[in-house]
């Protein structure tokens, strides 16, 4: 039952039919344009003409000290951003889903919706709301801290190099916690009641039930949210862009690969967009994410056991 049965048949047209619409739309509208862009990383501009440059752009990215510094700074920041999500967002999401999925919990639809609302918001609103709340001027955060007697802890988090990235990471967690929550919730729903009932009879309740029964059964979904978090974080851009601007201040302390890429590719203010270096960075992002996804697809996913219900 754990493995799908293989039934060999002469020509299975239906496979093609199932795949065709997705593959066609996706290839035409997404893959062709994107790879058309990525290949620019092998070119550079000479005046108004495009010349083949081989790996020169990559050489620049890694060996020109300024480019390299920006790149490594962005990569490290991005890694930290990802770590925050893995350590904060996903565990919170899983805990919330676990709580919400307990049978007979009243108001669970209300909680679920409420907790999901931030995920619905556009970045513009999120940026605005949190800037307002964390602003030292308008007093929301300081006043709230004052209420609990911790006013002294307040600092202008978004303006300090040492806190800004972590703060944004947490804002992003706040916004996106709904995603792991929903996925895990859906996964938990598919566990048959009877298995849980058997556990109840066996004396495996509460936390133990979660760790020993539910968690192993939803492991594939945990795998999915991890890889989605990875992909999402290494592609992230909007929140930083709308909260800190394209220069990802202060002093590039919140610069992640996404902002670095957009700034380079599309340009910013007086900086004119450089599609060649831009796609070089994009290629690097692509390789990093591809490596992660391959690692997941071929090393992790194949090892995760799935159970059919």
């Amino acid at each position, binding site marked *: 039952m*754990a493995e799908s049965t293989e039934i060999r048949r002469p020509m299975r047209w239906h496979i093609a039919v199932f795949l065709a619409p997705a593959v066609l739309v996706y290839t035409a509208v997404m893959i062709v344009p994107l790879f058309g862009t990525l290949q620019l990383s092998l070119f550079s501009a000479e005046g108004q003409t495009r010349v083949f440059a081989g790996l020169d752009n990559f050489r620049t990215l890694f060996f020109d000290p300024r480019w390299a510094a920006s790149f490594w700074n962005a990569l490290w920041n991005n890694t930290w951003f990802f770590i925050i999500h893995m350590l904060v967002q996903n565990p919170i999401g899983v805990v919330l889903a676990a709580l919400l999925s307990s049978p007979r919990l009243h108001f669970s639809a209300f909680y679920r919706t409420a907790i999901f609302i931030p995920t619905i918001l556009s970045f513009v609103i999120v940026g605005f709301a949190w800037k307002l709340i964390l602003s030292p001027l308008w007093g929301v955060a300081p006043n709230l801290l004052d209420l609990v007697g911790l006013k002294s802890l307040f600092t202008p988090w978004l303006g300090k190099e040492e806190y800004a990235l972590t703060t944004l990471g947490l804002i992003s967690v706040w916004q996106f916690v709904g995603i792991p929550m929903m996925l895990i919730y859906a996964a938990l729903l598919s566990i048959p009641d009877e*298995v849980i009932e*058997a*556990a109840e*009879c066996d004396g*495996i309740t509460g936390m133990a039930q979660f760790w*020993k029964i539910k968690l192993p059964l939803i492991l594939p979904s945990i795998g999915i949210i991890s890889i989605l978090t990875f992909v999402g974080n290494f592609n992230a851009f909007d929140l930083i862009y709308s909260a800190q601007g394209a220069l990802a201040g202060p002093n590039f302390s919140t610069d992640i690969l996404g902002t670095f890429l957009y700034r380079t590719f599309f340009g910013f203010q007086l900086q004119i967009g450089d599609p060649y270096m831009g796609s070089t960075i994009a290629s690097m992002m692509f390789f990093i994410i591809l490596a992660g996804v391959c690692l997941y697809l071929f090393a992790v996913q194949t090892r995760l056991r799935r*159970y059919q219900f």
Partner: protein
Amino acid sequence: MGSLKIENIKKSFGSVDVLKGIDLDVTDGEFVVFVGPSGCGKSTLLRIIAGLEDSTSGKVLIDGDNVGNVPPAKRGIAMVFQTYALYPHLTVKNNMSLGLKQAGEPADEIARRVGIASSMLSLEPYLERRPAELSGGQRQRVAIGRAVVREPKLFLFDEPLSNLDAALRVNTRLEIAQLHRRLAATMIYVTHDQVEAMTLADKIVVLNNGQIEQVGAPMELYNSPANEFVAGFIGSPKMNFIDGGRLGEAAKTIGVRPEHITVDRNAGTWKGTVIHAEHLGADTNLYIDTEKAGLLTVRIFGVYDAEPGAAIYATPDPARTYRFGADGRVIR
């Protein structure tokens, strides 16, 4: 330690009344078998006892305590689910030992109990497999194993042997009986198998349509069924019911068990013709169409050769016929 009292339990799913007021007393250490037609509410009652389902009204008392708000884990029970409900991600061994580990039993004790259970259920070769790699009967045995290793005071078995072959079923039945003696545990056992019911039970509870029809020792039910339903339900092939009027009796219905009718080719009470003979090896079931009593089933020990169409006489054992009134109750 293990006594159970059920008071006026009712259960409805929406508008469907599934249990319509069940009262039952089970003393400590008793072996109670629930029998009844498919869908009469046996599993539901078991689940209410286990605390997996809320009753619409009524009380369940274990050892005298109302366990209405006690979670299943605290009721000191073990249950074999009709659907098995194995943990799909755990090996057979871990399926059995998880509950013990949780209870903090020492490792060697766990190993010992799992060892006993798996040898009792012939599961040794499969200990490292997962449920998906087992046959239906093997899964069912794992489900039994998971319950028995816990050695609780109250066992709830929901058709635990239905997917086992005859030999294994006899064996496992004997093992369960032994377990019952060894642990002095109370057992509630649902089955459709007459042999199991008759051999295992201290007390059989006959359920029908959400109500208890009769409670009693096995032979008591066989010998003195309270009503037509019980008379028909206990015993296989089932009792022949003959319209009383046809026989000129006062009772609405007359019942004779197939094994209490003798046949003879030449003489007897009711004349008829053989319709069909079922050869089961050890015995033979004859289906006879009699002029007087209508269609009868007769059970004959050993092999009995009868051609369909052959004329035959059937004679009921007068000491073993039952009389039922219009309300279905037995008339003594």
